[in-house]
């Protein structure tokens, strides 16, 4: 038991600039920026141009620096795992799916967020994007209610994804967030921790893939209780 407490203390340490209010402020900036990027993505756009556009939008928000690269992925590239290079030259079709994953640094503080969007009228793609978001909240609710460990949360997430007809990519299985750089404290996955992750210090990631069709969806946000998700109300 003491070992677990020691492990949690070590892995949940923060740096000297850590400030709860600012972490939440950067979270809000990150989510707003994701939606600003998405609102300017259009069918016919080449993925590389969308990434450059995202870079410019982040720069306008004083978030040039990132703790990871900027990902805007179109169509089949939504299957790619974190860090993998996209297939080049993918153009967003009239009916298609795309995801955004950004990890900006504002001042001394890290943000991280991801979401998936669709264009056109493919109901299965729309369900994929919706299910990534739903699964995020289903897993988050389990964390909130059962005080589950990171390992239990991702075992649960994989089973829930299967039940919905998707495959969960466990290469993207949560991580720390803090004042920059969290990697100096703990660079590993949340899935590996045997304690209940504390709020505000971790990011919950959900990347699901269609088992046969060439697309997937991604959603991630800070691990926080319901009160931080006003869109869920009603």
């Amino acid at each position, binding site marked *: 038991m003491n070992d677990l407490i020691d492990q949690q203390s070590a892995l949940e340490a923060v740096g000297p600039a850590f*400030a709860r*209010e600012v972490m939440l402020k950067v979270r809000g900036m990150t989510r707003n920026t994701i939606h600003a990027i998405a609102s300017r993505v259009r069918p016919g756009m080449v993925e590389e141009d969308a990434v450059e556009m995202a870079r410019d939008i982040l720069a306008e928000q004083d978030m*040039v*620096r990132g*703790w990871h690269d*900027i990902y805007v992925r179109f169509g089949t590239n939504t299957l790619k795992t974190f860090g993998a290079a996209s297939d080049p030259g993918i153009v967003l079709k009239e009916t298609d799916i795309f995801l955004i994953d950004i990890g900006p640094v504002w001042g001394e503080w890290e943000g991280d967020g991801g979401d998936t969007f669709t264009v056109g009228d493919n109901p299965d793609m729309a369900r994929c994007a919706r299910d990534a978001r739903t699964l995020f909240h289903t897993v988050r609710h389990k964390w909130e209610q059962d005080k589950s460990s990171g390992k239990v949360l991702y075992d649960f997430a994989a089973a829930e994804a299967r039940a919905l007809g998707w495959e969960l990519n466990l290469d993207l299985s949560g991580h720390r967030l803090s004042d920059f*750089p969290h990697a100096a404290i703990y660079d590993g996955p949340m899935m590996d921790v045997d304690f209940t992750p504390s709020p505000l210090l971790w990011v919950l990631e959900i990347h699901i893939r269609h088992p046969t069709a060439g697309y997937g969806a991604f959603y991630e946000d800070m691990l926080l209780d319901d009160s931080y998700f006003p869109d869920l109300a009603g």
Partner: protein
Amino acid sequence: MPDAENPSRLVLTITLDGAAEDGVKALCGETLLEALRRAGTGVRHVCGGRCACGTCRIAVEPEWAGRLPAPSRNEARLLGVLPGATPAHRLACQITLDEQTDGLAFRLDTPVSRPSAAAQSARTMATRSMETNP
């Protein structure tokens, strides 16, 4: 100089923090970051060499000023927002080594955060909040 085991490649010697006598061995075609990592220099690379985090920043010695290809728009923009930016700075992940860079002299210069005015304001806000809401 030619690589004895692989003559088709060149081995470069780069000078890190003035340690000219040992230098860092590097291969043509790899990035400076890759060479520094292999040499165990402890260079930081939070984003994995993707020109995102700026932690692999180096300062090129004056005799090398203007001898490297100009930074890309993205590298220049990132360098410009890092604390303590100077024209001598480059990102090791963005420098691809070739014969022209043999002998490159530089020092590691990982940015130390000195908050921007906006960030400093946020920090003050957070401190005040903590004082009023212990």
